[in-house]
């Protein structure tokens, strides 16, 4: 089992429900294949540095999860097929990355509390 992290950008024309549905779909896709979700983050509607599909903003989502490596291929294909997804990036996390992710999360939770 390896840890991975995915950032994906959803089309900004989607409604809130559609966004939730899409996120749910991918979460289920992973958990059905024996993945353990570690963290989910919703960055909300963000302005992008350049236009993708003629759109200047998008809904950013982040997943951190643990899954056997074979699933990733299938998972990325699923991203490619979904029209609501504008961009995706999956990265394998090494031990330093995992350490950093934990630190980042604790920092973020502190900030949201304050």
């Amino acid at each position, binding site marked *: 089992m390896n840890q991975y992290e995915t*950032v994906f*950008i959803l089309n900004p024309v989607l409604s809130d429900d559609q966004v939730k549905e899409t996120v749910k779909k991918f979460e289920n896709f992973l958990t059905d294949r024996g993945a353990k979700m570690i963290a989910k983050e919703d960055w909300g509607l*963000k302005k*992008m*540095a*350049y236009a*993708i599909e003629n759109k200047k903003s*998008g809904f*950013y989502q*982040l997943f951190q999860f643990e899954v056997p490596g074979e699933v990733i291929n299938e998972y990325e294909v699923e991203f490619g097929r979904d029209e609501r997804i504008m*961009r995706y*990036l999956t*990265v394998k996390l*090494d031990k*330093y*990355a995992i*350490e*950093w992710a934990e630190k*980042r999360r604790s920092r973020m939770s502190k900030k949201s509390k304050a």
Partner: protein
Amino acid sequence: MATLQQQAKGKKDGDIRYLSPLKIETQERKKYCRFKRSGIKYIDYKDATWLFGFVNEQGKLLPRRLTGTSLKYQRKVAIAVKRARHIAIMPYVGDLLK
């Protein structure tokens, strides 16, 4: 302006002279790798504001000779910047970013 002959003699009218030589720093402060010094092990591609410190105002990566980053971490910086560009939190090309 002093004439050639005067310059040759070393007498320059109106020039300021100092009794002790001026202290001019000829050697720049030694550059160092900030990752090694502060013990950063992982470079996060999600933190765009921080990564902007490693690119010029056109959005191009700065060379090691300017930032002083060691080779090991320069490679990681490059990867992080490229990832940040892919997810559109940093521009591929830009103008007057700073």
